[in-house]
């Protein structure tokens, strides 16, 4: 049956309510209309219109008389409840508004957080086979338990090996990231761009992952060497159209690639990001196929459903042992291939030095908790303000009960009130979410957040918040107020107050404890970032302009001449003070070498992991790294290509007693990338510097000498402004390195990127602490206003008896400020614990100072005093005669 069908549930609904003699005729007519709309508007709109027509028929003329009479009664009662609730809302406009504003704010926060979390958890789930896909990563451990290396990628042989030898592996693909300069062939305009998101992948890539192809065949597109698939936006960038299959792209000015497919742009919730996919067989060198130690290849495998991961790990161990068992014996360490489920990569990764990544999942949970707390604060406001008015509403309850209302009915009445005000709040919140979504999108970094209202999950959540919130916040007041006994109330006795007011006060304490805790959290985040920024990083960062070296330019004997001319020309300009070329610069990766680096007089079991980078003789001076002892590299000394300079951490890790004793010692160390047993002499020891960020500790770094490194050029300028010298630098660049685009940046911008995630967390916390404190204060304001109003007679009598305004203000304010103080004190222990936990994630963290707690608490008490005193002062100034005359 391929015929289109209108939604079944709507049909069933129609059948349920529609009179039998009309049902068949109406249903037939609607079927005709549906078929007609189906052909004109398509299935979606036709179904929608069908539902709409069914709803239109839901009228008395077409319905059976099946509604029982009690339901009719119920509707009348419902109308009555509704009217009472509505009047009540209007009678106490100020209190209702306080509840409403609080609830709305809380709901906005919760809705945004909910969507944010849902999106973060949706990463990589769009792949049809996502439950079968795993990333195969490699890690290594020394036999004594120390970490050797731990990464997310693997050797180039890993994929093919497990595919061949492990029956549970159905398919694999490798992914090797590399930058490239691309230019279109046959376009009139000559243009080329530096592209960072270029990946080499096996032909199975598109059958494992479900990235949709706009054109091209996903089975064959990546089979041939020199094939490339590009995303739609790249097709537009290079050719101005997506009809590009069969056209050519030139990679790095020499290799011609044929476009065999166009992909839709990569969805935001994918951990893989690329603009170009080049077929793996385009890589020619043997090392891309047979290397057993080069961990730069992301490897993904598809397992048969229900495969036992533990069992697979054992099989992997066997493969590795067979091949490298002897080597492991020698270095006293082992490597492992481990599976990581695809859907956990985004939130639970963090094996790499990518700082902050591993905290992702924790931050998400923290956000949910904070969002819920803010919402709970608002619900408490509603609860407190409702129960505080219990005395007033007691009479109403008494009369209702006297004329026959049951307790159940009274509970209904108060629950309805909760549903009403929560309903109004959720409507306002949805409206505000619509207005605020562009800003939210900026803060959260999720571009899709702009279309938040079109997510069905958003509406489910909104309804959920409404229902749960109404029941949660409505139940206690309903319970309290329906419990009044009509006789005692109507006789004029006060309601049983003691217990309820204790509960009310504890709720206030709870509110302020939460608000203060969030403020302290915000403060710690900002102080820690401030602390890290103000730390001496151990190197010169100001005015440092860094240019990544040319990529397509051949690094041969002429390169050194070009670089020397580039350097001399730049230094002729007075704006360029110093220049150096190096393999890495701070905040960029330095390759880690493990396995055999150790002192020459020690055996292999002492080998540890070190970072190795090459630099020219100007690096130390340009970056102002202090040489503790020994000497710098020099162009005149030929043997310097076999000498190394080490930093303090490396010196300690090599177990040299002092910097001086290290000088002249020999160590096993790879030179110029060659690994086999080369030895190097230590000629200098430099002070440590923070190469990445203060989240990480110092790395043990070994510097080797290379007079002309092509990776990074660093220019120390005479100011932090580039505008004056940019044209000049560009010109010199073009003279030496041709038309390749130059893309430089200031180092401090790059370095501060590392704090971006923390800054964002800080900003989010700042918003929430603002919201939390406002909601709590609104509640306190409402509560105190009401309570003071209740006591106006008492105050008048006190005044008559001689109390001064000051006396009265202090009597009235004291109890509320005590509550806030109590809240502050009770917030300290768990906040302290949290802040300390968070700081443990940083290698360099500030000391937790009491000020961090004292200022938020005193500040909150101060603002609370303002909120309360506005009403107390006013009341204290009232002429006693006025208030006592009232009844």
């Amino acid at each position, binding site marked *: 049956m391929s015929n289109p069908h209108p939604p079944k549930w709507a049909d069933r609904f129609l059948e349920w309510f529609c009179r039998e003699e009309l049902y068949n005729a*109406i*249903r*037939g*007519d609607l*079927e005709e209309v549906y078929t007609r709309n189906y052909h004109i508007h398509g299935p979606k709109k036709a179904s929608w219109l069908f539902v709409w027509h069914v709803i239109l*028929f839901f009228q008395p003329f*077409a319905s059976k008389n099946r509604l029982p009479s009690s339901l009719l009664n119920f509707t009348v009662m419902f109308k009555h409840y509704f009217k009472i609730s509505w009047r009540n809302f209007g009678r106490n406009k100020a209190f209702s508004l306080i509840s409403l504003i609080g609830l709305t704010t809380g709901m906005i926060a919760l809705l945004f957080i909910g969507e944010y979390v849902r999106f973060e958890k949706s990463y990589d789930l769009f792949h049809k086979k996502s439950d079968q896909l795993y990333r195969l990563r490699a890690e290594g451990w020394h036999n004594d338990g120390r970490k050797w290396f731990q990464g997310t990628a693997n050797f180039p042989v890993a994929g093919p090996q497990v595919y061949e030898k492990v029956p549970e592996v159905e398919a694999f693909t490798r992914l090797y990231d590399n930058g490239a300069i691309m230019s279109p062939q046959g376009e009139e305009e000559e243009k080329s761009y530096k592209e960072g998101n270029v990946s080499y992948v096996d032909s199975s890539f598109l059958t494992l992952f479900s990235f949709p192809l706009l054109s091209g065949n996903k089975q064959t597109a990546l089979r041939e060497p020199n094939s490339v698939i590009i995303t739609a936006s790249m097709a537009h960038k290079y050719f101005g159209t997506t009809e590009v299959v069969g056209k050519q792209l030139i990679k790095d000015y020499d290799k011609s690639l044929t476009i065999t497919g166009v992909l839709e742009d990569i969805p935001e919730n994918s951990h893989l990001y690329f603009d170009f996919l080049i077929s793996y067989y385009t890589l020619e060198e043997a090392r891309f196929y047979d290397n057993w130690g080069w961990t730069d290849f992301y490897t993904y495998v598809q397992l048969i459903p229900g495969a036992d991961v533990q069992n697979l790990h054992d099989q992997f161990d066997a493969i590795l042992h067979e091949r490298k068992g002897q080597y492991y014996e020698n270095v006293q360490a082992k490597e492992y291939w481990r599976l990581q489920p695809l859907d956990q990569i985004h939130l639970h990764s963090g094996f790499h030095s990518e700082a902050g990544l591993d905290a992702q999942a924790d931050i998400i949970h923290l956000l949910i908790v904070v969002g819920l707390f803010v919402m709970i604060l608002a619900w408490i406001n509603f609860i407190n303000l409702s129960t505080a008015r219990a005395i007033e509403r007691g009479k109403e309850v008494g009369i209702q009960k006297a004329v026959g209302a049951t307790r159940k009915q009274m509970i209904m009445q108060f629950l309805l009130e909760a549903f009403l005000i929560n309903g109004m709040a959720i409507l306002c919140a949805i409206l505000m979410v619509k207005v605020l979504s562009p800003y939210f999108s900026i803060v959260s970094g999720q571009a899709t957040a702009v279309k938040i209202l079109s997510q069905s999950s958003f509406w489910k959540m909104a309804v959920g918040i409404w229902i749960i919130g109404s029941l949660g916040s409505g139940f206690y007041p309903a319970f309290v107020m329906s419990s009044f006994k009509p006789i005692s109330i109507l006789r004029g006795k006060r309601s049983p107050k003691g217990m309820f007011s204790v509960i009310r006060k504890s709720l206030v304490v709870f509110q302020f404890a939460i608000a203060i805790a969030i403020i302290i959290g915000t403060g710690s985040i900002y102080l820690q970032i401030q602390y890290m920024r103000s730390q001496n990083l151990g190197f010169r960062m100001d005015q440092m302009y860094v240019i990544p070296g040319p990529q397509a330019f051949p690094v041969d004997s002429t390169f050194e001449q070009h670089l020397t001319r580039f350097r001399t020309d730049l230094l002729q300009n007075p704006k360029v003070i110093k220049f150096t070329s190096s393999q890495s610069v701070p905040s960029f990766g330095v390759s880690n070498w493990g396995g055999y680096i150790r002192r020459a007089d020690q055996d292999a079991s002492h080998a540890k992991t070190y970072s190795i980078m090459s630099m020219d003789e100007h690096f130390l001076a340009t970056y102002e790294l202090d040489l503790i002892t020994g000497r710098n590299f020099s162009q005149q000394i030929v043997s310097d290509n076999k000498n190394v300079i080490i930093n303090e951490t490396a010196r300690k890790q090599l177990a040299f007693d002092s910097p001086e004793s290290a000088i002249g010692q020999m160590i096993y160390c790879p030179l110029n990338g060659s690994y086999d047993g080369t030895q190097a002499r230590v000629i200098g020891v430099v002070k440590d510097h923070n190469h990445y960020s203060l989240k990480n500790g110092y790395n043990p770094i070994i510097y080797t000498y290379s007079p002309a490194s092509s990776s990074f050029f660093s220019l120390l300028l005479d100011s932090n402004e580039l505008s004056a010298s940019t044209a000049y630098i560009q010109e010199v660049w073009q003279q030496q390195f041709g038309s390749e685009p130059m893309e430089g940046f200031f180092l401090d911008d790059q370095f501060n990127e590392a704090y971006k995630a923390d800054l964002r967390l800080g900003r989010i916390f700042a918003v929430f602490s603002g919201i939390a404190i406002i909601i709590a204060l609104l509640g306190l304001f409402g509560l105190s206003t009401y309570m003071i109003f209740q006591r106006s007679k008492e105050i008048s009598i006190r005044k008559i008896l001689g109390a001064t305004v000051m006396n009265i203000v202090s009597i009235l304010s004291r109890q509320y400020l005590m509550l806030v103080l109590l809240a502050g004190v009770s917030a300290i222990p768990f906040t302290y614990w949290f802040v300390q936990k968070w700081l443990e994630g940083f290698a360099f963290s500030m000391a937790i100072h009491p000020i961090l707690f004292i200022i938020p608490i005193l500040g909150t008490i101060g603002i609370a005093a303002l909120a309360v005193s506005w009403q107390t002062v006013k009341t204290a100034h009232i002429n006693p005669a006025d208030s006592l005359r009232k009844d």
Partner: protein
Amino acid sequence: MKGTNLGEFEELVLLTVGILYGDAYGLSITDELTRQTGRKSTISSVYKVLVRLEKKGYLSSEMGGATEARGGRPKRLYQLTQSGVSVLHQTREIRNSMWGQFPKIIWEGGGL
């Protein structure tokens, strides 16, 4: 006399049922109304009037004419009853009589 008065929409529906003699059912009436008057009405509002008119005795109905397009469901075919025809006549006569009493001067534009 009050019970026999026809509303404007009721009158239009009755007339349409007459025009569609033999094939007047919910959807065809709705379509024809739209075609004749140029205004859109929903099936439910037409049904509402049909049910009312049948109760008043101006229309009678029977089942018949199931087709594939309707998923094999029969139509409820309406036709005018004797009193339906006469109430239409009545309405028309009242109008004609009132139109006849219009002063001629309005048509000549002199009075305006």
